């Protein structure tokens, strides 16, 4: 269908509401944050309007570099774990009976109703020495005595994967349901075992969906700030944790804003790079 370009000012009418929402809830807060990142901190109070780069300068240190590096590494790992778990799971789910599908989807959606705090404390109990899952392993004779599994990197990774998995499945589900089931059947008649046909047909045919899902989970995991504090050691703290710390406990809003702006820029850069690489790969 061909649409005419808007001619009069009133033709833009339908855009007023979404544009207003976007400006009020995205552009204004984000612009405020960028502005604050250049303000000067007032140790006795809050901050005073100014235009200084000291917040960004302070950030350029080995310590913050390491935290940034770890944050990105953690987010990428969570994204990969989620996709590796969710793609086969969702594929099998999409081939299951309607009833089974509904039950699983409802169960997964119910995880979304849990807050990050509840997820964090639930896993910290499960990973504890006194009441944790290692007690079960002792009971069935795999371990000699129960051990504490947190705080540790594994605990942070597990809880974050747990939290992001429902989103991953929900993003993958429509694409996998739409995937023509005769494609895998064709692969099997051509000599591919079910596992081979999954990797040579299902995964490549869904490449774009999988890349999009990786980016989504990556960004989701980057904003996580409670789980690393509850389940990790200080070296497992992410940039989001430090931003929260600076903004809320140290009352250093300008520095927190500078870190947040920097994190957004790095994230945008990485996503842009992934999309660019994907385009190039498609052309080749």
């Amino acid at each position, binding site marked *: 269908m061909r649409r005419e370009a808007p001619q009069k000012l009133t033709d833009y009418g339908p855009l007023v509401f979404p544009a207003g929402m976007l400006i009020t809830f995205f552009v204004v807060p984000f612009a405020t944050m960028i502005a604050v990142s250049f303000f000067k901190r007032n140790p006795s109070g809050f901050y005073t309007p100014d235009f200084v780069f000291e917040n960004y300068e302070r950030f350029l240190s080995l310590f913050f570099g390491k935290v940034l590096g770890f944050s990105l590494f953690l987010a990428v790992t969570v994204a990969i774990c989620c996709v590796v778990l969710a793609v086969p799971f969702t594929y099998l789910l999409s081939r299951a009976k309607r009833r089974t599908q509904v039950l699983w989807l409802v169960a997964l959606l119910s995880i979304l109703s849990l807050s990050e705090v509840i997820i964090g404390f639930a896993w910290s109990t499960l990973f504890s020495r006194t009441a944790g899952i290692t007690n079960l392993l002792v009971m069935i004779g795999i371990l000699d005595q129960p051990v504490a599994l947190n705080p540790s990197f594994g605990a942070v990774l597990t809880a974050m994967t747990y939290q992001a998995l429902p989103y991953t499945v929900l993003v993958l589900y429509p694409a996998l349901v739409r995937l023509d089931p005769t494609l895998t059947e064709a692969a099997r*008649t051509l*000599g591919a075992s079910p596992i081979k046909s999954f990797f040579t047909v299902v995964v490549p*045919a869904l490449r774009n969906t999988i890349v999009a899902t990786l980016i989504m989970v990556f960004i989701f995991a980057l904003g996580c700030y409670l789980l690393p504090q509850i389940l990790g050691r200080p070296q497992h703290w992410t940039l989001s944790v430090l931003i929260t710390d600076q903004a809320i406990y140290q009352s250093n809003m300008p520095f927190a804003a500078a870190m947040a702006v920097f994190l957004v820029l790095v994230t945008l850069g990485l996503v842009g790079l992934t999309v660019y690489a994907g385009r190039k790969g498609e052309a080749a």
Partner: protein
Amino acid sequence: MSGLTLQNIVKQFGTFTAVKNVELTVPHGTFVCLLGPSGCGKTTLMRMVAGLDLPTSGAIKLDGKDITNVPTHKRDLGMVFQSLALFPHLTVGENIAYSLRIRGVGKEEQKKRVDELLAMIHLAGYADRPVSKLSGGQRQRVAIARALAISPKLFLLDEPLSALDAKLREAMQVELRQLQQRLGITTIVVTHDQREAMTMADTVVVMNGGEIRQAAAPVEIYRRPADTFVADFIGMTNLIDFKADGTGASVLGASIPSLAVPAGLKSGIISVRPEDVHLTAPGNAPVTGTVTFVRDLGGTIETFVEAGGKQIVAVSMPNARPDVSVGQSVGVQLNPSDCVVLKS
């Protein structure tokens, strides 16, 4: 023996029996069409041959070897799906080479075979094109080439031409038949189009309600249908009740003296093809009727005659155009040799 043998195949989905006690032998190198209305179990039967569904009971043998429980990917077959199922992320060449790649055939050899197959389907030079840039007929050919890449023992096609327009479909039927004869490959095609089945097959297997109603050569199926379903499903026919009367049978109130009725059969149905119904002047034939409609299609002329409370269709060629008009009284001549006696 060499070829495909199906022994007492049954397939149940829950309480529904999709395929009932099917017995079929497909000699090596023959072309078989599974023909029937939708829901008759023909696709289910083919999926079992392919190993995509497992039979509830019965055995499938290929060249004397029981393959009932052999997984699909070890059966060495080629299958063309109704949706074609070409891989959207691969080029034409990669699609065709897929089965070779899976089997670890070298790159050089893959390329050689792909070029060979592309030449065979008249698409030489298309190897690097994306599948999405092909027309319907070209995709069809690529799907066929992909299925034939490994020179399979069995070539299965599930409603392969249903997505094509009528003209292209007719051309592809001829092409497919010629290809099959050149390669001498055992081929099974599922179709609901009887014209397609008649064009291509050595043996037509007519199915209904999960059972094989008749399996024979196309002409045999047409001339000697086994029952009223087959007679009615294949082409046009007139099904007329008869009663045995000592020497022959009485049909439409008149007697056909020399009609061979099996001993003991008191009544039944005869099937007469419309081209075997001859119209004469009234009084020259035992049965008299009234013309109700004439459909002149140019190539053939169908005359609808009401006789003895039955509607009978006669087909004739333009050069033997019957000189009749609606409302006219005509004689209906049925030759005993053209009548097939069926149990009712």
